[in-house]
């Protein structure tokens, strides 16, 4: 059993909502109740072990930030207790406590003291911090002249060199450029090997899958799931898709479609077999359902799909004709066409375009065409890791030929 570095026990945080501050003040001193309650966290308990990275996910307003602030000690819980066995450093928001008039160099001392380092500790690490931040000569310029990315780099560098037992990272990594954010990810992994534990909150599902050993899912202030990242993230995706259901899952917008409209595309949906939502792992089997209604008797028709990446590039397209299916529609009948396939494409956001036409392509008698009929996201990789947009599944061989 590894050592616990943090114990969160039955944390409940209730924000009291008052008509005005006078009521709030009256309640501190009088017995009477003047407030309505908003429960931000309800009975949250978990432990964090040494060298562990724990992810926390949840929809907006699920109580992620509240629990982080309570762990960091910035706000007090209404009930429950947090036991910290070591220094907790929180990167709650960028540029925590920077004095904008002062140089980056002086701010290292300022910030370092705030998060609990003493002077000799900072003296011994300041060169590493400056080097890691890649600020170079800018370190002697006032922070007010920095771009937000530069300030973030400095904040992150200080935090990681303060060698906390527990580091809380709240969305901070998503701000930097690709170079720095991959450097941060590497640094976090390295620190983890030493013996830092990390609590990581992000909406970037891919980085959660890469970094975390365990993930907790919050919904409306409560823990609804915990366990392996893959599983919990699927649960999260399910919550999102439910949310989308509730608003408008307008998959087929009448505005977005064009064509003769002899055939109408009623609904397009896409779902991962495991994730049960439109956030799908690379390599996972997914099902696309296209529901159509024909207004005429038509024969020799084709239903096609096209997957495009976020730049609008065609990634993959196919249709029923290429698969030698002959489709004949009858007047006023509805049909469903399913495409099932393994999504062997790289991580990222994609859109799905669908069309109904005759013959091989939509140049012939296009009945209905919808751009961006639905969106989906590939997050995380099932099976062997790869980079790029398509998975070519190589067989790799290596042998000694001498």
């Amino acid at each position, binding site marked *: 059993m590894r050592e616990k570095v943090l114990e969160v026990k039955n944390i409940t945080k209730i924000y*009291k909502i008052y008509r005005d501050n006078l009521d*709030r003040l009256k309640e501190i001193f009088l017995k009477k109740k003047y407030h309505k309650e908003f429960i931000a966290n309800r009975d949250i308990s978990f432990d964090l072990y040494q060298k562990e990275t724990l992810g926390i996910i949840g929809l907006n307003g699920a109580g992620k930030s509240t629990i982080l602030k309570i762990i960091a000690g*910035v*706000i*007090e819980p209404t009930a429950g207790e947090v036991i910290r066995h070591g220094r907790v450093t929180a990167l709650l928001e960028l540029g*925590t406590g920077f004095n904008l008039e002062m140089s980056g160099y002086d701010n290292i001392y300022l910030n370092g003291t705030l998060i609990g380092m003493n002077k000799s500790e900072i003296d011994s690490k300041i060169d590493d911090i400056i080097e890691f931040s890649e600020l170079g000569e800018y370190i002697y310029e006032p922070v007010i002249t920095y771009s937000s990315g530069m300030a973030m780099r400095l904040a992150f560098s200080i935090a990681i060199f303060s060698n906390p037992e527990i580091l809380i990272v709240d969305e901070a990594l998503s701000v930097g450029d690709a170079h720095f954010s991959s450097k941060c990810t590497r640094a976090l992994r390295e620190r983890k090997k030493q013996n830092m534990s990390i609590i990581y909150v992000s909406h970037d599902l891919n980085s959660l899958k890469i970094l975390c050993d365990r993930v907790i899912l919050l919904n409306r202030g409560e823990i609804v799931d915990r366990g392996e990242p893959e599983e919990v993230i699927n649960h999260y995706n399910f919550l999102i898709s439910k949310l989308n259901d509730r608003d408008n899952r307008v998959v087929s917008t009448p505005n977005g479609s064009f064509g003769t409209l002899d055939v109408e595309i009623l609904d397009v949906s896409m779902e991962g077999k495991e994730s049960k939502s439109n956030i799908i792992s690379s390599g996972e089997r997914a099902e696309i359902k296209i529901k159509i209604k024909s207004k005429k008797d038509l024969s020799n028709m084709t239903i096609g799909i096209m997957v495009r990446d976020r730049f609008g590039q065609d990634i993959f397209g196919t249709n029923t004709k290429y698969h030698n299916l002959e489709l004949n529609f009858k007047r006023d009948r509805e049909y469903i066409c399913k495409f099932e396939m393994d999504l062997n494409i790289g991580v990222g956001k994609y859109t799905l375009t669908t069309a109904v036409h005759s013959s091989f392509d939509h140049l012939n008698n296009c009945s209905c065409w919808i751009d961006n009929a639905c969106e989906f996201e590939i997050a995380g990789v099932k099976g062997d890791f790869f980079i790029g947009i398509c998975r070519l599944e190589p067989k790799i061989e290596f042998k000694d030929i001498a």
Partner: protein
Amino acid sequence: MIENILKSFLFAKREFKERYVGTSLGQFWYLLSPLVMIFIYTVIFSDFMKMKLNIIDNSYSYSIYLISGLFAWTSFSTIIMRLNTIFFEKAHLIKKVNIPIYTFMISVILSEFFLFSISMVLAIIFLIIVSQPVTLTFLWLIPIMVIQTIFALGLGVIFALFTPFFKDLKEIIPILTQLWFWATPIIYLSDMIANRYPFILKYNPFYHFVKLYQNIFLYSKAPSIKEILLISTIASSTLLLAIYLYKKMVGTIKDII
């Protein structure tokens, strides 16, 4: 707790270094303001206006009277005003770093006490220049200054705690402080109101402080045990009330700033 108080020292030291960073006169500014005050009260009041108190035999007697009271008041009111807005000034830190708020309050007290000491030293140098006797009695200044600063801390914290609930206090406190200033015999002599408004003197806690400074500066008169006990009681009861309120209210304040 001890660690946090050590941190207050660090903050105070840093604030001291940083306040005038980038100015060409640098830390000389700390001396400038009390020096200008001394200059005004000697040149304007004693040399130009020839205002003189006949209570002691020194042509700068009124200046001496003014300086003792004003320096004490300046420190007192500055602390109250600075503490009053501390939750707003430090909101960006309070919300992100786990450091108790009293750390920042104590750091204000420390740096203001240091400035207070500088101004008192300058005042004593001034006394020597105008050949006003400076005796060992002046050592009494040290405990009185400490007790006054504790009183200012207590009162400042109490006001500061209520300000997040009533933003108006931000405006009200400076005005109240002004009124309080004129209700205290600093510019005028206590004799001038002692007969007509004795209650103003009796119930004005700061009067009990300021009169001790004035007695030391003008007559080298040491405070009596009774007087010291009185100001200690005022200061400690204010501080205890402040601590009680702080514990009760600080959690809620963290939620609303």
